[in-house]
Structure formats: C-alpha cells, structure tokens
C-alpha cells in the first residue's frame, strides 16, 4: 500500500551568528514547500518615536538603529534632514562622510566574514572557539578590524555611534597628520585583505544559481555609496526621489520586519553582490585583478557568493579609503544650520545594501513623519525566494540536516541584520 509521506518540517530556533533574532521554518510537503523567516526581534518603534524629536537629535538616535552599521544610519539620517532643509553640505563634508561610510562597510564585512560566515565552513560553532587553531585568520581579522575602526574613532570620536557627525558637517575636523597615520594603518593591512579574498573565494559553496534582480545605487564618477541613482540589473534606473513610487513596503503576519518589493517586479537583492554585479566596471584595477585571481566573474547569480563580493569590497574599500585619506587637505569648517520645513529622503549603500531614511520636518526642525527601510527589509522576500529554490534543489529525505545547514549558510551569506530590519 502506498503511504502518504508526512510533511517534513525543518526549523531553526533563534538563528545564531546573525545580527538580531529570527527563527526559520521550512515545511516540506508532497507538492509544495513553505518557507517562513520568523523575525521575532521585538520592534523598537523608531519611526514612531522619532516623530516629535528635533533635527539635531535625529542623527544620534538614528545611529542606534544598528550596532554594526551605525555610521551608515547616521549619514543617511543626516542627508535626509539636509535634503528636507535644502542644505547642500560642503565637498569636504561629503568626502569625510564617504570615508566614514566606506570604512564602516569594510569593517562590517570583516566581522561578517570572519565571525559569522567562516565558522560554518570550518565546522565550528563560533569564531572564538576557532581562533586558537587559526592564528593567521585571527590576526588578519583583528588587525584589519582595528585599522578600519580607527578611522571611525579618529574622525567620528568612537567607532560605534560616532559623535562628530552632525547636520551639515563635523563638529571637529581631523588634522592632516592623523588622516595620514590612518592611511598608514590601512596600508599595513592591505595585504591581509588580499589574503581574505583568496580565503573566502576558495570556500566550498553549494553549486546554486537563481535568477535574481539586483539593485544598487550607481553614480557617474565613483563607486556609489552616499550618492547616485537606483540601478537595476534587469534594466531601469530611478532617482532617489522616486523611491516611494517604485518600491512598496508590506507587513507580514509572521515577522516584525516589513517586506519590501519592487512595484510590478517583486523580490530583488541588494548588498555586496548586487553592487559588485552592477558596478564592477568602477572598481580600481587592482580589485578587478584580484577578482580574476579568485575566479569571480560578473554577473554572478549564486547568492552564496555574496561572501566573495564582500571580500572584494573589503579590498576595494581599503584602497578607496586610503585614497580619500591621503587626498584631503582638511580645512576648518563650522556646521551651520538654517532650519527649514519640508520632506526629505536619502538613500545610501549600507554594508548590507540600500538604506532609506525619509523625514518630514516642521518649521522648528521637529520631525513630523519618519520612514525607514533597511537593507534586510529589501532582501527579505528574496531570501525566502532563494531558500525555497535551495530546498527544492537540495532536499534529501534521509538527510534533512544537510539542507538545514545549507539554509543557515544561505541566510548568513545574505548577512542579514534583523535588528535593523525591525527598527
């Protein structure tokens, strides 16, 4: 007699080594597959309590959305406020912000690759347990992290939740000498970034490809971080002001984070892989060469390779930070603000992808409306879509643990930040 196969469930409670709190449930029935990412991170209501706060606090509060990319949140916040007030910050301010944000992206990638991703492929529960056996990796991790954190510390005051970044500038401009010593610090760790790319490029990723729409910011002259236009790998580009028209945010009943979709097109991917796929041509030649060395070719449709894309961005970011540090001749500037009412939206490339902050200010500079969309919200639908494809491809009834492991790896490859996503 034929037996009806039981629907199998693979579930992971409180996924470790990601930022924030989520469970994963994969239900495998006869015909269909049901995937839910239950982001149970409690909501903090930033969009709620930012209403009524003043423009000069918004940056400091905004940076507390995320403990791993506070500088990105802060910069986006400040840019949104400036947009609302019609302020165009000085080239020096933009220069320093780009530097800070890039340093942040590199630092965040380093943490993700070494602390969160690597243990999976080396068979350890965590990086701390791994450290004693992997002397070189440990050193690379610590030294690179240190060099990038120093950038935030010297320019921003502290690496996490910096304090010198305010609306229309910096409360203190670093001295040329300290910029140069930061640059020296980066020179020292640059070879380690190469080693990192080789290490990450060599990891045994599952053979897996999914058709994906990638979206990132793109700028005419530079590898876009804080300025640019939305660009899709499937064609099309929109200005930042068109964000509300092109993207929709939906609440789902099983997660505290909202899901963001491209109007009329559906899920899409943002982050390192999206950026590299779309802007590979804008990399420095050295980075392009490095990509070749680790056999990375664009376009790449394997989401696991987001890790490799991050490794390349580490190298690229360090070169660019070095350029920014050595090319600036710091001038004294005082951040002056003339309060004006109005709406303003800013979009930047945070480590994990597109980050959107939008505020409406009244004539005293007090927030009347706040809207935040984080990279993980943008990726949310796509992660589920990829998980589904992964389960379809790799599910073996006699070895469910293999799939479970692959699912975890896939989620981590996206480097999601659930704390941010539920802000």
């Amino acid at each position, binding site marked *: 007699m034929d037996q009806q196969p039981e629907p199998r469930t693979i579930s992971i409670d*409180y996924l*470790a*080594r*990601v*930022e*924030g*709190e989520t469970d994963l449930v994969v239900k495998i029935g006869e015909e269909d597959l049901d995937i839910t990412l239950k982001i149970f991170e*409690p*909501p*903090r*209501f930033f*969009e*709620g*309590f930012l*209403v*009524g*706060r*003043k423009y000069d*606090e918004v940056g*400091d*509060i905004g940076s*507390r*959305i*995320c*403990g*791993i990319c*506070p500088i990105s949140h802060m910069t986006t916040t400040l840019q949104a406020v400036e947009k609302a007030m019609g302020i165009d910050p000085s080239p020096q301010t933009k220069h320093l912000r780009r530097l800070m944000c890039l340093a942040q992206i590199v630092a965040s990638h380093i*943490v993700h690759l070494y*602390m969160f991703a690597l*243990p999976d492929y080396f068979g350890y*529960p*965590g*990086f*701390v*347990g791994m*450290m004693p056996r992997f002397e070189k990796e*440990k050193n690379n991790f*610590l030294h690179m*992290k*240190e060099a990038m*954190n120093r950038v935030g510390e010297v320019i921003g*005051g*502290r*690496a*996490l*939740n910096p*304090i*010198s970044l*305010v609306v229309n500038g910096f*409360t*203190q401009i670093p001295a040329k000498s300290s910029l140069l010593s930061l640059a020296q610090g980066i020179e020292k760790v640059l070879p380690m970034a190469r080693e990192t790319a080789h290490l990450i490029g060599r990891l045994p990723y599952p053979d897996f490809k999914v058709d994906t729409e990638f979206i990132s910011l793109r700028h005419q002259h530079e590898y876009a971080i804080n300025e640019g236009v939305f660009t899709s790998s499937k064609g099309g580009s929109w200005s930042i002001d068109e964000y509300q028209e092109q993207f929709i945010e939906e*609440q789902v*009943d*099983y997660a*505290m984070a909202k899901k963001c979709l491209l109007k009329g097109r559906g899920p899409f991917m943002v982050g390192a892989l999206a950026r590299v796929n779309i802007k590979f041509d804008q990399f420095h030649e050295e980075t392009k060469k490095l990509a070749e060395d680790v056999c990375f070719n664009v376009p790449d449709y394997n989401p696991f390779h987001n890790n490799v894309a991050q490794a390349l961005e580490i190298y690229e970011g360090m070169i660019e930070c070095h350029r920014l540090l050595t090319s600036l001749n710091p001038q004294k500037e005082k951040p002056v603000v003339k309060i004006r009412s109005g709406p303003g939206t800013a979009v930047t490339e945070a480590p994990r992808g597109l980050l959107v902050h939008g505020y409406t200010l009244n004539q005293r500079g007090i927030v009347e409306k706040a809207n935040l969309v984080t990279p993980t919200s943008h990726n949310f639908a796509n992660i589920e879509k990829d998980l589904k494809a992964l389960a379809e491809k790799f599910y073996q009834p006699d070895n469910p643990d293999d799939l479970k492991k692959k699912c975890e790896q896939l989620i981590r490859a996206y480097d999601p930040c659930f*704390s*941010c996503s539920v802000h």
Partner: protein
Amino acid sequence: MNRKKRIRLGVFKYTCCAGCEFQLIFFQKKILEIFENLEIIYFRMGESGGGEEGPFDLVLIDGAITEAWQADQLKKVRQAAKFLLPIGSCAVNGGIPAIKNSTSELEMEKRVYQQIQPLHSMKAHPVDDYVKVDGYIKGCPMGEKDLVEAVTSLLLGKRANFINYSVCVECKLKGNLCLLIADKLPCMGPVTNAGCGALCPSYGRACYACWGPMEDANSRALAWQFEKMGLEPDDIFRKFTQYASNKLEFRKGAQLYGSTT
C-alpha cells in the same frame, strides 16, 4: 592561588541595536586576552548552540525589556547567574527604546504598523526594573574602561568599582574648555555619568547624556539653568528623555517641562 579558572559567560540580547555585543567583540587589542579567560556558554551572536540554563559566572544583558517573554527569561537567567550586569544604556536606563515611553503604546504601534494584532510590545524598561543587578556597565555603546574593570574584577575576585562621577570630572582632567560656560552650549555633562572620557566635549560638542544620569544628579537645577540660557521647554524636555527617560534622576528634569507618563 588558582586564578586561571575560566569564567562561564552568558550574553543575552533584548530590545536594542546589538551595539554593545559588538563592542564586546570589538574589544580591540584586549579581545584575545579577555576571551582566553572566558568560556562562552550562551552568546547567540557569537556562537551557535549553548543553553540558557547556565550556570553562569557572569551574565551580560544588553537591550531594554519590551516584551513579556524577555522578562520571564531574564528572571530565569538571573537565578542561574552569579553576577549579572546590564551593559549599555538600553539595559541600564531603558536607553533609546525608552524614548517611546512618553507616548502611549497604542499610538506608537499605530504609527508604525497597519495591523497591530501581532504586536506584544510594552513600555521599555531597564533590566533592574525586573531583577537585581550587580553593577552597571554604562555607555551607548558600553564603555571600555568599565568593561576592563568588570573583567579584571572578576579575575581578581573583587567588586568592580565602576565610574560613578559626572562627565565634568573627565572633561576637566582632560583640560577641555567647558562648553557650557565658554560656548554657552546646553551640555548635559554635569548630570551625566562619566566613563566616555568626555568624548563629545573633546570633539567640540555638547554632551547629550548617552550614558544616562550619574547617581544623585540634580537634573532640575540643570534644567532651570537651561531655561535661563534660553532653551524652549520642549527642548529641555527632550534633553532629559533621550537616553534615560526611565531613570528618576532625569525624570526630575523632564517633568518640569513635559509629561513623562
């Protein structure tokens, strides 16, 4: 003396940005020396596995308590822990999540979500509203000096002497010109707990109290002074409700200029 016993560590994250956990991980040059002395029992962001039953020598809590399950777990963890320290402003003072406390919860939920049925959120509370704590590592993110003090104290087997004076002390030790007097900026330094090394004033910026109040701070007197300096009532109110709206010391300043519910 057997000093090399490894400390059984648990780290629990509640409602916050996880910055303090990163501060722990990023502990710069000291990370190796520190982790040599630690055995991780529960630290979800750092390692998979691990039980919340402990037993722990040291538990660090980051984040404010905003849902009932967190309070339940916290109470269990407290029982399994020899020492329990809240780390960072959210856990110590309610922090940024507690900004919402001066508005009704329902109003908050409606501002952010269309459907509010799945939400179980409550007002944000610091850890010591629910369980006894053995000290506070203040800061946003938590301060390195106090963290070093906590770890060396554990290794030595002594009670940690956390920094408990005002930011002004550190500011004067550094020789910064006082921003409140010299630049007439509304600096929160005089009522804020030190530990940051007077960071903001050293960068030419008024302290915005991210470490929360020092013990026995006279917030009312400072609020009056701000009023004399020409600040609007709502500006003063916001100053005292940004990072520690839960703490009595700051509520005294805020209450004069707005409702803290």
